[in-house]
């Protein structure tokens, strides 16, 4: 199979939401000595960008987006370990988390997907993440950006606690903090000292690429 055919296969797998096809395509890429970074960017990420555009245009909806994301991660699981560490040295590092006390994570997972598709190295801390972990690990992981989410009112205060904790730890100036979730607003972001609030995962990724 030619390199072009392999890249198309990876992209098509993501668009169609077929994890098994992505696994096969990723394995073929490695077997054919295709640069894994190229397979990611011109295969998996290209497919995810198409899906992102389709979602924005309401041509596909959440079930398809989630399956495409799962497909992309299936391919990434195979391709990422094959990238030489030196090639990743310049990639920006970001973490995603739903703050402590909340378990609603669909929005966070879409943000994670779009950040990955935008070329960030993304660490996903999951949901119900303790503020102490967010503050401590942001510094130890030397994050460039942090994307926090909540869908609930009471846990919004956890976002403020995280930003305050980053200030106290002395790491706040080194990391961009984005927040999202239905109850949040740009005013709330400003109030707690976050850098940005977005209602759209793709726009959030674009904003971060612009400021980092």
């Amino acid at each position: 199979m030619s390199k072009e055919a392999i890249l198309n296969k990876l992209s098509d797998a993501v668009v169609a939401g077929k994890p098994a096809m992505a696994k096969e395509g990723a394995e073929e890429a490695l077997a054919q000595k295709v640069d894994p970074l190229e397979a990611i960017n011109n295969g998996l990420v290209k497919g995810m960008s198409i899906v992102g555009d389709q979602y924005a245009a309401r041509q596909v909806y959440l079930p398809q987006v989630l399956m495409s994301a799962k497909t992309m991660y299936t391919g990434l699981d195979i391709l990422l370990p094959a990238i030489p560490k030196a090639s990743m040295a310049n990639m920006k590092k970001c973490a995603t988390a739903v703050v402590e006390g909340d378990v609603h994570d669909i929005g966070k997972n879409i943000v994670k997907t779009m950040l990955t598709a935008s070329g960030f190295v993304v660490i996903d801390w999951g949901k119900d993440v303790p503020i102490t972990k967010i503050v401590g690990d942001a510094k130890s992981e030397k994050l460039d950006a942090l994307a926090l989410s909540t869908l609930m009112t009471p846990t919004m205060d956890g976002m403020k606690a995280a930003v305050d904790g980053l200030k106290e730890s002395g790491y706040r100036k080194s990391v961009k903090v984005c927040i999202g979730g239905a109850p949040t607003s740009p005013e709330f972001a400003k109030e707690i000292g976050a850098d940005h609030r977005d209602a759209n995962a793709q726009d959030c990724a674009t904003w971060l690429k612009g400021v980092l």
Partner: protein
Amino acid sequence: MADMTHIERVMAGLTGEKGDRLPVYPIACGVNRKLIGNGITYREWAHDPKMYAQGFIEGQKKYNYDLCVGLMDLSVMAGDLGAHVRMDEQNTPFVDVPIINNPEDYEKLQVPDVKKGRSAVLIEGTKLYCDYLKDKVITAGFVEGPLLALTQTAGAERVFMDMFTNPSAVHKALETMTAFDVELTKGFGTTGCAGLCWDYLWGNYSCLGDAEYEEFEGCKKYAMGLNELTLKEGMAVAIHNCADLPHLDTQITKFKASIYSMAYYPLIPGSMSAAEVIAGGYTDKCLVGGNLDPQLFIRASVEKITQMTKDLCQEVKTALCKRGLDSPKYCIASGCEVPPDINTKIENIQAMVETGKKYGVMN
């Protein structure tokens, strides 16, 4: 026009008759436990039908608003199905451990006895507040639609992906959820409530398109059938959907809702303002309620929420006038529940209600 009673005013909005002012209803539910006194926790309020009802009764006494809709929270059905609910003492509880771990688990769901658990609290409590308030305001019970109940039970992401990969398993579970809703609807039918408010959250273009929503909730065997049963049980169909891009044509027009409660997200393209909803003809078909940001009740000053309410009244009255409607077809309400958070400001609820009454007067 002479002052109307609460019931006359809402009925005017429902039937298209002239009204004295716009109805006002902050969706104040769990937060009203604070009015009962004795430091009652959310857990106590949500597990005792008498306390549950007393919250709504005290809310009506204090604020004197135009409706009473008995929302508890969105983990009632999932909890009674066996999912673990994290019950905060002073805030909204939620499911933290879903019970669907593989496609086979969908088939294991069984309809619980609605005379037990929080389903029973909901039905018994609704009966109690309806007995007390039915001569004063239009009352309604509140119930989760089948797809919402399933996503709460199984985890939304799993359900959405399984719609794609295992649709038959999802349908099997939705049949169980619908059967659960049938039992709840029959239970609410015995309470004397005038309406039943369905939470059909996933009719939202951010999540599902028309085809997916029709297949997984909007069709006859799920929501349409439940709406028909609601009417058959003697209750009007009300719908609450606080999503950003609700399926208004399906949920208002096709579902023939009498009351439709919705939110507004000004930063999201396509989210409809009150004026746009009215101009779009949706208030020709039902009484729409909305759309103050619930966060105002926690984070805003009294002055800010007063101004926001005043602005909404003006926006609504202008839009109704442009549409040629002299009926109070839009209820000044919060777009979603007033947060039951311990820090929610009682004075902000008071200010919103008083401002709505003052500036909602229709000339």
